[in-house]
């Protein structure tokens, strides 16, 4: 593997080895990379959560110092939002968006790779702060003056620069997904024949495109305050820390829909399959998702009800917040309507999906109580809020994504996850989840504050905190089971075949795992749930899947991932060649980021990093997309 700068990528795509992954531009491989990376970060973030729960298990906990606690809760939030849920959503979107709309890849395969590598490198960069004097410790929201005053360390610089790099990655992948949906759909795949997941991915991409810029600017301003003496958030000099809160939440609230909408999309795919009925009110689900996207930009200040915005703003944002519950409620009724009267199969993906609905309803209801300004004033910064957003982000998003893993794992690997262990995982996770977060409602209403590393005895908080800690470890055990199940099933699971769930959408028409080019023949779509209608006419089934029976044979054929045969068979299909420029450009950006963090001597790194990035970008722009092979 002689890597002599110029051409590392002469080999055809799909070959094995580290370099083939480093240079891959295949949306499925990039999706898997996103998924595996996010899962790894999930365990790190989970470990941080367990340490937090250990500390809080009893009054006057001594497990962590206040300083360590600040770092851990900051990194827990940052990790789960930016390094777990967003990338796991990106993993699903990468892998399935093109397939669901009948495309062979995303619009910009190399840009896609760039987004992934930038995400990975930025994540590593943020975590490297632990070894060089401590991680960010001003909470993931980074309010001034907490984020601007502590200037003797670079902790919050890691946060500001790291988040901005992650933002670049997200904007790039969002533009990519939007272009993919708008320009790459298969013939007949009209917008209103797209699976709901594809729709939600589109809405999320728009949310990110428009919500990341404000926070990016805010982070730059913070960075300038900390390092160049700018006065954006220095109240004493006439700056206004509230500006940060507005810029942050103008991103931060759309962000929560960024986290939840893909999960809602996954649920909307799973429920019809396991109820063996079409999605109830497809258009309503789609347009509710879009409505959530629009209204999501008008509710941000409900995070700021205690900041003294005045009654008019508070009333306005309170009402907007109640309004946004309407499209969300519409979706929930549609999901229930989907299962109603269906022949439901209670397999693992379905169990997680149903739990998603139930848990999300609880989180949604406590969310509506936040819309009531006087009530919110009491709940603000208490554990009630912690309970609320874990019910929507864990009970909602995480349950949804785990459902997605169980549902689509067979497509990724060609093998089924173990159903029995899956059910054990489900029940442990559901019980552990409720043990952890339900008591936090009570704790919060009893006045327990967030982000405080100790609480005194005799406040009546001991019992529920202990329960929450027990619950947290139950969740931990359930995810170890999950991990074991995945590792086991990768090689020993029951072979899945093309269509293990009797699915409705295009991904089930192709082999598991899919060939590099996804579709041998570009699909022509005639209706919503096209595949289902091809399988089932008015009376009985008649599969039109091109690939013959599956068991074993497919696995041997695609397991080797030798693409020589497919290239022979499909001369006209040119997949983009691997490229190392995306990884190179993102590496340059991260080196620049390090330089910015250690400005006093980091200018050299900034210059070197920018040169590398420019080299990568120009090389990228000028290389042919599909290289002549041999």
């Amino acid at each position, binding site marked *: 593997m002689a890597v002599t700068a110029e051409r590392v990528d002469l080999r055809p795509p799909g070959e094995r080895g580290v370099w083939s992954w480093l240079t891959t531009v295949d949306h499925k491989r990039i999706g898997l990379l996103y998924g595996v990376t996010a899962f790894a970060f999930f365990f790190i973030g989970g470990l941080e959560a367990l340490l937090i729960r250990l500390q809080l298990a009893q009054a006057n906990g001594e497990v962590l110092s206040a300083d360590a606690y600040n770092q851990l809760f900051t990194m827990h939030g940052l990790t789960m939002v930016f390094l777990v849920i967003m990338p796991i959503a990106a993993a699903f979107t990468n892998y399935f968006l093109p397939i669901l709309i009948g*495309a*062979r*890849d995303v*619009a*910009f*395969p190399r840009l896609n790779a760039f987004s992934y590598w930038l995400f990975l490198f930025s994540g590593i960069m943020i975590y490297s702060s632990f070894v060089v004097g401590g991680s960010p410790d001003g909470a993931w929201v980074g309010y001034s003056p907490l984020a601007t005053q502590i200037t003797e360390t670079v902790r919050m610089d890691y946060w500001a620069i790291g988040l901005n790099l992650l933002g670049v990655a997200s*904007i790039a992948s*969002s*533009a*990519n997904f*939007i*272009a993919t949906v*708008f*320009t*790459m759909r*298969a*013939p007949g795949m009209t917008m209103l024949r797209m699976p709901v997941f594809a729709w939600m991915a589109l809405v999320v991409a728009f949310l990110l*495109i*428009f*919500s*990341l*810029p*404000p926070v*990016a*600017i*805010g982070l*730059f*301003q913070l960075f*300038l*305050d900390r390092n*160049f*003496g*700018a*006065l*954006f958030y*220095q109240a004493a*000099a*006439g*700056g*206004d820390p509230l*500006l940060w809160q507005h*810029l942050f939440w*103008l991103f931060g609230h759309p962000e929560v829909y960024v986290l939840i909408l893909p999960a809602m999309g996954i649920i909307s795919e799973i429920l019809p399959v396991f109820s063996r009925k079409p999605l109830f009110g497809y258009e309503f689900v789609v347009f509710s998702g879009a409505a959530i996207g629009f209204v999501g930009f008008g509710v941000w200040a409900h995070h700021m009800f205690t900041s003294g915005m005045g009654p008019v703003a508070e009333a306005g944002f309170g009402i907007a917040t109640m309004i946004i519950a309407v499209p969300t409620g519409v979706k929930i009724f549609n999901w229930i309507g989907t299962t109603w009267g269906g022949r439901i199969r209670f397999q693992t993906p379905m169990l997680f999906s149903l739990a998603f609905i139930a848990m999300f309803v609880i989180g949604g209801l406590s969310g509506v109580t936040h819309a009531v300004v006087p009530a919110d004033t009491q709940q603000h910064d208490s554990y009630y809020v912690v309970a609320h957003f874990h019910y929507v982000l864990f009970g909602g998003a995480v349950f949804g994504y785990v459902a997605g893993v169980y549902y689509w794992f067979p497509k990724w690997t060609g093998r089924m996850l173990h159903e029995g262990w899956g059910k054990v995982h489900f029940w442990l996770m559901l019980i552990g989840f409720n043990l952890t977060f339900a008591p936090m409602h009570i704790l919060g209403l009893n006045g327990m504050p967030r982000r405080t590393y100790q609480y005194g005895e005799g406040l009546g908080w001991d019992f529920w905190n202990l329960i929450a800690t027990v619950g947290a470890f139950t969740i931990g055990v359930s995810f170890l089971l999950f991990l074991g199940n995945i590792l086991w099933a990768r090689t020993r699971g029951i072979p899945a075949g093309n269509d293990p769930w009797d699915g409705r959408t295009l991904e089930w028409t192709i082999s598991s795992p899919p060939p590099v*080019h996804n579709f041998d023949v*570009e699909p022509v779509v005639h209706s919503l749930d096209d595949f289902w209608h091809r399988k089932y006419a008015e009376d009985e089934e008649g599969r039109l899947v091109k690939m013959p029976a599956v068991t074993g044979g497919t696995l041997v054929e695609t397991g080797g991932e030798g693409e020589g045969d497919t290239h022979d068979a499909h001369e*006209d*299909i*040119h*997949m*983009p060649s691997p490229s190392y420029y995306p990884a190179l450009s993102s590496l340059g950006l991260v080196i620049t980021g390090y330089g910015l963090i250690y400005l006093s001597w980091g200018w050299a790194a900034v210059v070197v990093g920018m040169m590398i990035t420019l080299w990568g970008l*120009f090389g*990228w*722009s*000028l*290389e*042919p*997309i*599909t290289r002549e092979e041999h």
Partner: protein
Amino acid sequence: MASHPVAETLPGGHAESGHDIHRIRKTAMWVFLGSECLFFGAMIATFLLYRNSTGDGPGPEIFDIPFTSASSFVLLMSSLTMVLAHDAFERGDSRQARVWLGGTALLGSTFLAGQIFEFTEFIHEGLTLPTSPFASSFYMLTGFHGIHVAVGVMLLMAMFILSLNGRLYDDRGLNVELVGLYWHFVDIVWIVIFTVVYLLQVL
């Protein structure tokens, strides 16, 4: 543009379904520019919030409107040359396109030089980044725009060099139309900045 077999230039070999690579790229560029609007919007909002927070430092009275008007005119004219470059490119006239691309880059550089001169003057008059929130937001907004112009000039020069090698139509990730879209956007944003930051503050 038709000098290459279609299947070769399309990602994912979408030749048979006729996915148009130019349409795909333009879509993404428009999305990116939509995102850029919010970047500039956030900074313009910041500036408006702090326009009177000048502290003890100088305020908008140090703006030299005639000078900035002249450099704004230069930048706006560069949109004209960009249109001419694009037109020549569309007609397949590589030589003309090169002339106008070079001209656009030159005008952009002139604007940048003007901005650097302006910043130097302001700093001499005591307006630096840490002077006041007004100063911080002014420098951030106009500086960010300046960086955009600089990136644009770099892209234009890249196109210029490509045209020297006769590779202007050697269709890769970069092309004249995308650079043009970006360039016009940067110009339009300047119209807003010039109005809001300079003219409205002095009037």
